[in-house]
């Protein structure tokens, strides 16, 4: 049986892992490679790295870090941030990342999804999306709108429509990172996650808001997510992947228990 995945997310800023709430008040948490090793040894099923300042600083992602992570750990990892061309994608893939995550850039230029999927395969292209709840049901019938550039800009695009379009273009997986839940540790935004998980036939990853094992269980059981991204509660040491998985396992969720 396929296991539900727990994916620690590492936001990298200036070569260090940081964590903030809604992209604000960032705190230094450590070295990305050291943390990758610790999470890999601790039972992470996959990792995701976001170079959170690359895009805003108009510079490519830190390839040296990607290579070092690939040399050091033996589980899959995705990389996002500052990826704007096919050449950027190729550098990340050749450095040893399993997947590339595109977000704001894909909203501006959806063809980057198609180009990346054609070149590297659908399984390599992850669409990250940052939906926020909206009252504007005319433009966004699902009640969720896509934001870009670290929640700063509203696109006017409906989240469910965007998910379907991205999959048609070739996205092999979708990370639904709720703006409303991000950093709150009060649970995933189950409604939008479920809307998208039911609308597309590729795996959906719940992101934003993980505070305890029950939240993750709900993302799997209620929102039908295939994987869950966890950040703050692991980074601060409040819990471990082992503890989360023990609780999920006891609750009857299929998770990888030996590593």
């Amino acid at each position, binding site marked *: 049986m396929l296991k539900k995945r727990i994916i620690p997310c590492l936001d990298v800023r200036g070569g260090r892992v940081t964590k903030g709430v809604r992209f604000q008040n960032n705190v230094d948490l450590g070295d990305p490679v050291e943390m990758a090793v610790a999470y890999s040894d601790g039972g992470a099923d996959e990792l995701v790295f976001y170079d959170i300042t690359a895009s805003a600083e108009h510079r490519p992602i830190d390839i040296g870090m990607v290579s070092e992570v690939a040399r050091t750990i033996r*589980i899959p990892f995705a990389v996002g941030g500052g990826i704007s061309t096919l050449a950027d994608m190729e550098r990340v893939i050749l450095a040893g990342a399993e997947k590339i995550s595109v977000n704001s850039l894909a909203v501006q230029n959806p063809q980057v999804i198609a180009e990346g999927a054609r070149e590297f395969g659908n399984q390599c292209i992850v669409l990250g999306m940052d939906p926020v709840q909206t009252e504007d049901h005319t433009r966004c019938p699902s009640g969720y709108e896509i934001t870009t550039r670290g929640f700063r800009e509203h696109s006017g695009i409906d989240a469910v429509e965007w998910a379907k379009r991205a999959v048609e273009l070739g996205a092999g997986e979708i990370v639904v990172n709720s703006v409303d839940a991000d950093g709150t540790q009060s649970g995933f935004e189950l409604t939008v996650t479920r809307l998208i998980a039911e609308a597309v036939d590729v*795996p959906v990853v719940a992101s934003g808001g993980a505070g305890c094992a029950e939240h993750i269980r709900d993302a799997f059981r209620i929102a039908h997510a*295939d994987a869950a991204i966890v950040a703050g509660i692991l980074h601060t040491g409040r819990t471990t992947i082992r503890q989360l998985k023990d609780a999920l396992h006891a609750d009857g969720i299929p998770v*990888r228990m030996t*590593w």
Partner: protein
Amino acid sequence: MIAIVDYHAGNLTSVRLAFQALGCAASVTSSPDEIRAADRVVFPGVGAAYAAMENLRSLGLVEAVREAAVTKPFLGICLGMQILFEHSEEDGGVNLLGVLPGRVRRFPNVPGCKVPEIGWNEIEANDPRGFVRTYEEYYFVHSYYAELNPCTVATAGYSGVNFTAAVRKGDLFACQFHPEKSGKLGLKLLRCFVQTPSTEGRS
């Protein structure tokens, strides 16, 4: 020397790095002569079967790969396993290398089971040389699967299908999952491949 066959079917970095982590000399090559000269051959691959077969032909690798698959320790991974079979229903039907008996099919769309299968799945195994064992979990990424066949030594279940997770035929071992991305268990498998003496008496 280990030859990792490069036929432009996906990224070989992870495979190369995994052997490097084991301290094994492995070279990435598209040369039939290097494949013939190698002690062991790794045949990875990600992507579409039709394009991969075309690449093998245009690089002049079909015979060298077929020969290596039946004469020396050989490790197929993912698409590199699927291509060893006779036929795939991918891309409207593709004839494959025919080293192993059987067909490759697409997962049916079943509610609640996304295609591709992405993630860690548990296997049931019966490999005479113990490369893989029951209850072990490995990392899979695939939309197509090989049907069960006489060479199947490990199975896994997804989307209502019990499919081939690994095959063995003499010194040939091939797996649907990615040992190079499967943590310590994956490295253990690669170490088995590197260390197990060939039954043909070659090293």
